[in-house]
């Protein structure tokens, strides 16, 4: 699936849920499926410090594709990371760098999450795209 196909699938999954509590239920479930970061990468370098919870994010280049692993001390945050990882992991640096992420707005996450959470989500996304750009540059060198 392309990044956009994955996004569209997520949007469709969420569209079946009317209640925000159901959406959270789903996000939390996704968090449990998040490919966990190897503890040795749980370093300060890989830490994205939010206001109230923390996120560790790591990436490996495997067969020309970026594989993301992550973790968070908060379960909902983990679910949100998981959304991003499921959409972006397994794509080439170029695809990631050039991707346009619209599912966050479409699902209504940005307007429904607390601003600190949605800011956190955006800085995670930014970090993943930076990895995309960095690996792209590296491969061109």
């Amino acid at each position: 699936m392309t990044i956009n196909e994955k996004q569209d699938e997520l949007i469709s999954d969420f569209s079946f849920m009317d209640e925000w509590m159901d959406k959270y239920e789903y996000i939390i479930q996704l968090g449990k499926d998040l490919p966990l970061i190897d503890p040795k990468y749980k370093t300060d370098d890989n830490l994205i410090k939010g206001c109230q919870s923390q996120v560790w994010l790591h990436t490996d280049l495997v067969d020309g594709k970026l594989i993301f692993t992550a973790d968070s001390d908060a379960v909902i945050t983990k679910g949100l990371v998981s959304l991003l990882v499921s959409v972006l992991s397994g794509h080439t640096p170029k695809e990631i760098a050039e991707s346009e992420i619209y599912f966050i707005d479409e699902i209504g996450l940005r307007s429904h999450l607390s601003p600190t959470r949605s800011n956190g989500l955006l800085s995670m996304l930014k970090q993943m795209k930076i990895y995309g750009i960095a690996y792209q540059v590296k491969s061109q060198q």
Partner: protein
Amino acid sequence: MAHVPDIAAPALDIDKIRKDFPLLQEKVYGKPLVYLDNSATTQKPQVVLDTLERYYKQYNSNVHRGVHHLSQVASEEYEAARHIIAAFINAREHEEVIFTKGTTDSINLIANVFGRGVIKAGDEVIVSAMEHHSNIVPWQIMCEDRGAVLKVIPMDENGELIMSEYAALLSDKTKIVSVAYVSNSLGTVNPVREIIALAHARNIPVMLDAAQAIQHMPLDVQELDVDFVAFSGHKIYGPTGIGILYGKREWLDKLPPYQGGGDMIKTVTFAKTTYNVLPFKYEAGTPDISGAIALGAAVKYVQEIGLENIHAYEEQLVNYAVAQLSKVEGLRFIGNPKHRSGAVSFLVDTIHPYDLGELLDKQGVAIRTGHHCAEPVMDFFCIPGTVRASFAMYTNKEDIDRLVVAINKAAAMLR
């Protein structure tokens, strides 16, 4: 499982009181609001909003120096509010009541003027381990500036101050003691009478951070014989941006002024400026006139209901909350003080408070999560933060019940 006490027929009519607060009638995500973030700020009764509106529609004007009618009315109402508040805390003189921006401003004022007027290098200031940042950082800034030392009264696992350690900290170097009357993160009611008595035995003045006390229990500055008291209007049903510093005249008369500006001076020349008498000496610039007057209205509202009644009711309510929350699987309280007021802090299993807070919010229950501006308390308990439910006179049993239901639902999702 703990015994659940009944709420005895309260001396106050909570249903009627709730109707006085427009915001309590609001819905959040389509659900009736359960507002349990009262330690952060309280909602306002209609009479406070009416007072604000009347001020701006009928007599808004700058105070004190105007000969014209509006200015006279505004000045009278502003001073009347001071009298109301002076009576409320039983100040000997209304001039001992200073309008500030809030608790933080009041504490900074005293820290600053002590720094400039009293503290020498090597002197000591005592605070406690359960202070709000607003009663830590002003003293840190001042101590750094003056080469003084900040000492800390430690607390125990229950979240209570260790009084023997306090006694041992007091010395001839101690120039002031500043402690919270009630802890905002733990709900602990500190033994302020004992704290004051021990300090006064050595002629050391005491400041009480009453931000979490003033709205919950009667506070009589003469009976306590306290030297300084700070509190915020917005936590006692008044507007944001206004607060109170009470100070004994003997202190305020001799301490240097804080901010300089209009109204706080007697005469100004570039060569020599002489300062005004109390309370004006400490009220530089145009004050928050509407805020002060509306705070007067809020305090009057509280007085009409009666702090004794509020205190009795809230005590039952807190007990009920503790009892009900105890039944939640995996819930543990952070702080188990013998005397508790206004708030309960807790965690459920290993659930992150932030996750719990978010799912409570989505169920229409507003609580606060995090360090509650008391990081040293969180460090002490080695936790990232707590979930805190805090109460006001309008909180009712249903609020607590809905909190408990919401926690159970959220916890089930998060486990």
